[in-house]
Every structure is written in structure tokens, then in C-alpha cells.
């Protein structure tokens, strides 16, 4: 009778415990940049993206911005989520918009390689500031530390966000519907002991 386990799955760390075997999500090369110019500046022969990719992605992201940016019922609620000075009215962003609905200003783009034309996907995604100085996508489900740099991302990051144009804007209560855990003891990285 030993005092140790008979068999231990040498767990492969890195998300495998939580994904079904064989269902690992596809990843694509992705890049974030603050504006079109910084994308085209980085274009190199044989590089990840061409100047045309930059233009297409920016155009797609700007369309998504108008359709799907988070919309709030007041400037103060918008600024609570995105920081002071990071919001404007829907009317100033779109020709047909309301002066009493507020949206964050577009503050960067996320571009994914080889996704254009796939159903339900958009290779160019808008980025918005968060109150904490990071960047988030339109659905506010992902947070990025900056708005420039290259990485690999799951293709799900490029799913088209739900349309918010014409829908009821978020109130203070609904705007806070995500992210209510984890704020205590900010500055600590780990919480285990």
C-alpha cells in the first residue's frame, strides 16, 4: 500500500483542462494599432499584412464602430466605463444618431490575418479605452494592455459584435453587468496562498 496516487495525469498546463480534446480554437496572427498610418507604416514586403489589408480592416472596424460600439444613456456612465474625455455623443459620431446617447471614441484597431469574408467574422475590430487605461473590444469581453503590437489571438476575438445601434442604451446598472469581481486589492497579481 503506497501513500501516493496510483496514476497522475501530468496535466499539460495552458487551457487544455478546460477544452475538449481536438476542439482547441484556431488562432490567427493579429496586430493592434492606434490608427491607419501606424498600420501602413509597418507594412513590409512578405509581412503579415499589406497596405490594402490595413485599409480594409480599418474600414471594417469603423463600420462596426458605428453599428456595435457600446452605447450608454449618459455621458457620465460612458466615462465611468471608458475614462474621462473618452466618450462622445452618438449624434457626433453618426449622422442619424441621438444627442442623448453616448459612445466611447474609437481608439484603435485590431486586425486579424486571413479572416476577411468569413461569415460572422470581421478581420478589423474597433478598440476602446477602458477606465483602467487598457483597451477593450466592442462587446467589452476582452481586454488588451495596449493598442499596438502583434500577437496570436483566438479567431473568436474576430466574431462580429452584436449591433447596438437602435437598441436601448446601457444604463448605469446594465453597464456594470460585467466585471464586478476582481476589483478588490488591485495591484496584486495572484490571489492564492
Amino acid at each position: 500500500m503506497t501513500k501516493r496516487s496510483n496514476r497522475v495525469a501530468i496535466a499539460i498546463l495552458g487551457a487544455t483542462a478546460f477544452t475538449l480534446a481536438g476542439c482547441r480554437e484556431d488562432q490567427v496572427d493579429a496586430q493592434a494599432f492606434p490608427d491607419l498610418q501606424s498600420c501602413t507604416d509597418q507594412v513590409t514586403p512578405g509581412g503579415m499584412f499589406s497596405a490594402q489589408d490595413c485599409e480594409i480592416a480599418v474600414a471594417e472596424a469603423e463600420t462596426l464602430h458605428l453599428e456595435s460600439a457600446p452605447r450608454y444613456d449618459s455621458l457620465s456612465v460612458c466615462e465611468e466605463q471608458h475614462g474621462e474625455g473618452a466618450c462622445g455623443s452618438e449624434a457626433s459620431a453618426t449622422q442619424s444618431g441621438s444627442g442623448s446617447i453616448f459612445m466611447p471614441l474609437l481608439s484603435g484597431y485590431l486586425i486579424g490575418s486571413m479572416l476577411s469574408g468569413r461569415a460572422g467574422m470581421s478581420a478589423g475590430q474597433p478598440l476602446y479605452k477602458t477606465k483602467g487605461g487598457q483597451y477593450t473590444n466592442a462587446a467589452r469581453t476582452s481586454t488588451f494592455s495596449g493598442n499596438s503590437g502583434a500577437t496570436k489571438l483566438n479567431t473568436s476575438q474576430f466574431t462580429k459584435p452584436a449591433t447596438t445601434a437602435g437598441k436601448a442604451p446601457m444604463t448605469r446598472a446594465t453597464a456594470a453587468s460585467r466585471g464586478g469581481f476582481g476589483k478588490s486589492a488591485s495591484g496584486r497579481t495572484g490571489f492564492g496562498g
Partner: protein
Amino acid sequence: MQKMTLPERPQWRDHARDVGFTFADMHGEPYWDETSAYAFSLAQIESDIEDPATELHAMCREAVGHVLASNTLMDRLAIPVAHRDLIIDSWQRDDPEIYGRFDFAYDGNGPAKLLEYNADTPTSLYESAAFQWQWLEDQIAAGVLPEGSDQFNGIHEALVARFGEVFAPDTQLHFTAAQGNPEDYATVEAMGWAAREAGLGAHYCDLEKIAVSDEGQFLDDEDRVIGTLFKLYPWEDLLRDDYANHIAGSQCQFVEPAWKALLSNKGLLPVLWHMFEGHPNLLPAFFEEDIADALAGTGAPASDVAAAFERVAAQLRAGHVTKPILSREGASVSILKAGEIVEQAQNTDYREHPRIVQAYASLPQFDGFRPVIGAWIIGPQCVGIGIREDRSRITQDLSRFKPHYITP
């Protein structure tokens, strides 16, 4: 108990990389260190660690009932008034516990002394359960350790069994931790592996991405309702977050359950001493405000602990440790001997909290390092150990993990 110098497995770093154990080295220092290992006799493991730890867990459960019956103690443990019912309900429903880790000072002779109980969010589970286990298998196969060497490590099997016992087959569990910390994530993953092996569904969601639905249920990052949530995030923080008021109505079962907030709190230590004074595995402990003046010789102890204090006053004056009731990784811990601070944690994150005073138990020294024994409790039982050692008297987040074995 001996420290043995042993050859490292030649390929262990490759192995660590292959299995994603990315923090085997941290901040330029080894975290996993197999250049030596601790050797125990079977009697030391069984009589000095395993049985006492199982007994201590049962005593801690008694302490939960004792604290819940007293608003004064709830105050002293800084349990937010608004959430006391949540904790009481979780205890009365007998919400099941999965795991915890006692930290002991032990030198191979005499009883192990309880330093604290990480009952809510203990980490280093992966290193203890899996990487340490593989080390033993490899070293026996390589002839470095004699055939018949053993290890006190039934952690993984016990976890699988515990998940199977607590949850119906195919129950879907969510696991969460703060994003961006590989150590915390590794512990959550080791949990997820065990849950899946027990026939349960395991899903992960970053803590910061959890949402609340219009009906007040918690949702994961894909808007799926969370029915059971294993959180590597302490109750003391959960109860002070924006979502704290949603917990009670969420219909979500939390693991560890809310009553663990009473056990992962250093205020447990004076409660245990009060209930079980003189127990061989306990160190004398008091709330600081009850005895601070008496200890300094400038006043009297609080009347209800005066007699107990006098019985150990000489021991406390010779050496004691003060710890905030909420503290992790050794933060804000000070060690005093005869009134002089001999060691103080650099990290002062928790200094604003009330403190407890605990008699100092000197950690043994082996080659300049001081090991702390982490005894894993799964369900009601002690099922394994992991050892971390540090040059400092205060075990902190850079302490090394050391493997152990039981000599044949």
C-alpha cells in the same frame, strides 16, 4: 526528516516546458528545486503530519460553529455584517469543501506546529500533486531513489474522488482566477483536470469577465449561466467587490464555500487556542488588541483571556509573530524576540488589518534554508504534502518548492 542532496533529472527543464510548467523558474530564481529533497520515515508522515492534520481540520470545523454563534468573533474576523447570513447559510446547508492546506513548522521531532490554514485559495497544487509525483517516479526508475521509496501524495486521486462524491455526474463546473497569473491558473487547471477525470464538465472564465444576468445569475464570458463556481479568489475580497450583493441570490454554488472565510482568516488561530488550549499541534495565539499592552508590560490583558495569557506569557515574550488577520504570502508578518523585531516582511499590503499574536515556532534549518510543510486536506482528510523552503523565516512568494520522499 533529512535533507538529501540528489542528482537532478537531466531533462526536467524540458519536461517542465513540455507540460507548460512555465514558472519552474521565476524572477531568475529556481522555484522548483530538485537539487535536494526531504526524506521522511513513514512514522513521521503518518503520526506527526497526516493524522494531526486530519484532526486539525475537524477542530477547524468545530471552530466554524463557534465563530458563527458569536457576533463578537465575526467582528474580530472582520466579516462584513451585510454578508454574515450568506456565510451562516452556507454552513447550515453544509455546502461541501473541496480542499485546503495547513502550513506546519516541523523538524522531524515532536509535534508539527500549525502556522496557519490556507483553507480558501491554496496554491502550489500542481507542483504538489503532479510535478512532484512525476519526480518520484522518474527518480525511482533512474535508480536515484531506492525501489520501495514512497511519497505522501494521494492528492490527485483524492481530488478526483472528492469531486465525484460532491457533484452528480456531468455537472458543469466553472473555474475562475484573476487573469494573467500563471501560478494561480496552474492550480485552477490541476483542479479542472481532476474534475474532468471525475466525469464532470470543466470550463474556465477569467474572474474579471464574469457578468451578472438580468435575473441576477452569474454568467461566463460566453454568457452561459454559472451553476457552480470554483474561484481561486479569496472570500474576503469577494465580499468586498461590486458583485458581493449578487452572491446570495445568484443560485450559484461557490467552491470553496462561503464558510471557509472563517478558516482562511488568521483570527482562526486565537479561536483554536481558546477552544483547544494546550493542543500539541497548536501554538499559543491571541488577538493583538487583547494582549498588546500586557505583552509590552504596559497594561493588563483583556479579562477573558488573562488566565490563558499568563500561562504562556513567558513563551510569547521570548518570541512571537504578529500577523494581520487577512494576509497572504507572508505579507505584513513581523517576528519579535524579547521585544526586538528580528524579521519583518517587506510586503506590507495587509498592514491596515487587525492583527493576531502567535508564539514563535522556529523553523528548522537545513543548509541555510527553512522548510515549511504544506499538508493538503481534500474533503475531511490529509492526503499529501508539499514543501517550500526559504532562507528567510517568513515563507514568501519566492520560496522554493522541494520534493520529498518516504524512505523504504
